[in-house]
């Protein structure tokens, strides 16, 4: 009755009342003598949840470990998640809520590319330190924002690595199959630019939908051009459908993947046809796959904290990134400010992180801290092996 109307205005007024004390409380938002509040936004719902929710699970596991050991300079880490639904408006709203309502000290996260890119302006304006975990959009880190750093392999880095690999493998005719969404395009454009820069013309440029169940058309078109290397800018499902249909139609080129298909063992399982992934090579942001014995300790932690889940590469993205943030927080010292955290992040040089391919290095000029794609492959009846770890400049 009257409650409905009163309720509506009450929300507005209550929100206002609640918001004001926060603003005047501390000079450094999100900091108390015993805690540091870290926020994260990414997709918790919708198809992007792999790069959001699962990555955040990894971050949380690392934070738990740190807290169990006493925290950082006496402060425990408090972790707040927000959903952006892989939508630019959602990301802007989530970032604003974390910054202005929840008053976080710093941010770690970022899943879907367009969403994180849209939120960049908000974060930059508020000068909040932000470490990107999974978003690959080049525009997030180029031109560099003073407080935004990334441990994700950005699209340009991966595309360069893919082209280099194709050239090294002496492929004569290169074809590209890509997804048309924002993730796919974020990779496709630098890929085409890099190919052009190297003077290579692709013999075929096909598209697949993220939900495609049949790739006969694409495989036949590629087969007609005799392409011997196919660069796949695809998520595992369309890539698996492609690999399966290629095998079915007797087309066996070199299949070059990327971080989206970061686990060759899982991929082999998804394709389903024995032997179809024999010539599949892929890049990963992290140099281990979940089944690696080295990852046992993380597996135990993740599967204990999130019962029912299995360790996945997405968890590992978060795990790696969180360790970098923790190190920077440690280096910034007990007298913590946002500026000091930013300076600490920029000073990270050759810092080894167990999951990443090479030690992490950020510089003042370049905030892309991970430039070491790891090349992985799996023989049909063998384990996953790391072929090489490239260093891209």
């Amino acid at each position, binding site marked *: 009755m009257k409650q409905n109307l009163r309720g509506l205005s009450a929300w507005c007024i209550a929100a206002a009342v609640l918001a004001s004390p926060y603003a005047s409380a501390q000079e450094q938002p999100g900091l108390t003598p015993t805690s540091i509040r870290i926020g994260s936004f990414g997709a918790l719902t919708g198809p992007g949840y792999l790069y959001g929710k699962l990555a955040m699970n990894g971050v949380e596991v690392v934070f738990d470990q740190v807290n169990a050991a006493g925290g950082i300079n006496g402060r425990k880490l408090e972790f707040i998640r927000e959903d952006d639904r892989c939508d630019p408006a959602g990301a802007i709203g989530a970032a604003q809520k974390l910054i202005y309502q929840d008053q976080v000290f710093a941010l770690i996260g970022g899943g879907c590319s367009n969403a994180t890119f849209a939120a960049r302006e908000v974060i930059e304006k508020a000068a909040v330190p932000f470490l990107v975990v999974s978003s690959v959009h080049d525009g997030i880190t180029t031109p560099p924002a003073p407080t935004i750093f990334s441990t994700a392999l950005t699209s340009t880095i991966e595309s360069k690595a893919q082209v280099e690999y194709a050239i090294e493998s002496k492929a004569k005719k290169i074809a590209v199959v890509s997804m048309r969404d924002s993730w796919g395009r974020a990779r496709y454009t630098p890929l085409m630019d890099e190919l052009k820069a190297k003077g290579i013309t692709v013999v075929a440029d096909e598209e697949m939908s993220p939900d495609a169940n*049949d790739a006969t058309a694409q495989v036949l078109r590629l087969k007609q051009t005799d392409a011997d290397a196919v660069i796949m800018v695809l998520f595992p499902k369309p890539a698996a459908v492609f690999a399966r249909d290629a*095998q079915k139609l007797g087309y066996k080129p070199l299949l070059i993947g990327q971080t989206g298909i970061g686990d060759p063992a899982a991929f082999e399982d998804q394709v389903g046809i024995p032997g179809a992934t024999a010539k599949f090579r892929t890049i990963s942001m992290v140099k281990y796959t979940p089944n690696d014995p080295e990852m046992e300790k993380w597996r135990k932690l993740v599967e204990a904290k999130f019962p*029912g889940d299995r360790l*996945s590469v997405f968890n590992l993205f978060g795990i790696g990134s969180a360790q970098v943030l923790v190190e920077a927080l440690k280096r910034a010292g007990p007298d913590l400010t946002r500026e000091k955290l930013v300076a600490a992040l920029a000073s990270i040089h050759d810092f080894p992180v167990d999951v990443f391919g090479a030690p992490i290095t950020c510089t003042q000029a370049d905030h892309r801290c991970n430039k070491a794609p790891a090349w992985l492959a799996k023989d049909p009846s063998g384990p996953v092996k790391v072929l090489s770890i490239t260093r891209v400049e």
Partner: protein
Amino acid sequence: MLLFSYLLLGGLTSGVLYALVALGLVVVNKSTGIVNFAQGELFMFCGFLAWTVHVQFGLAYPLAFLAAIAGGFLLGVVTDRVAFRSLAKTDVVGLVLATVGLGFVLRGTARMIWGGKGDYLSFPPITSPEPVMIGTIMIIPQQMAALAGALVIMLAFAAFFKFTRAGKIMRATADNAKASTLVGISIQNVYTLAFGTGAAIAGAAAVLAAPLSLLYPDMGFAFFIKGFAAAVLGGLNSLSGAVVGGLLVGIVESMAGGYIHSNMMEVAPFLLIMLVLIVCPTGILSLYKARDV
């Protein structure tokens, strides 16, 4: 010619998956006049149920099949009893939104239960995974199994609606609910049975399709929209129309991809639909179907 036959086959294989979804939609619509916008999510959820039984707990394949169908039926019955009790009296937008809401609930639940297990879960095929040669063409046996399954479902339900008492009761309710009440039919029971059956079909479809499409919480929508298109193309009330519509959508996709360019594949079925509905506003097949009395 070989290109054409491969594309045709490719189109048929994806078309069968759409037909399976469309069949579930048509069965529910034939009995209640409602289009269940959650059909794709039911399909997805039952697929995960089958995965849990067979892959996670290692039980026998037929048990997984049974679990999917029974689980689907139960899910349909429960949602009808809990949520759709009084749906008959609601306007169309409300109906649509209620089933959409159900879809969200299923998707969110599936994501919470199974989302952390991997990005796309694989489900073993009922047949061997190796492609086989039939004549000069290679096919994957599971695709044949899916086609066979779709035909079996279609024939079984055609017989059900035509010959059994329950089937006739369901058709009567869809035709005119008020009149059905007058002759003593309990509409609530019919609705429950209809939702249960539609969901059970989604379960059967999922087990057939999962090896080909992989399992992930968001797979429902893409299947629903193509299945819905297929069902409407076939006339929304016709089981054979659903199958033909599904195959048609798949073939159009494949042909457009093969002959024009792969970037047309996503949009070709929708262009087809817009065209068809302008020319025949009630779907292709209903042009040739008089109403069964």
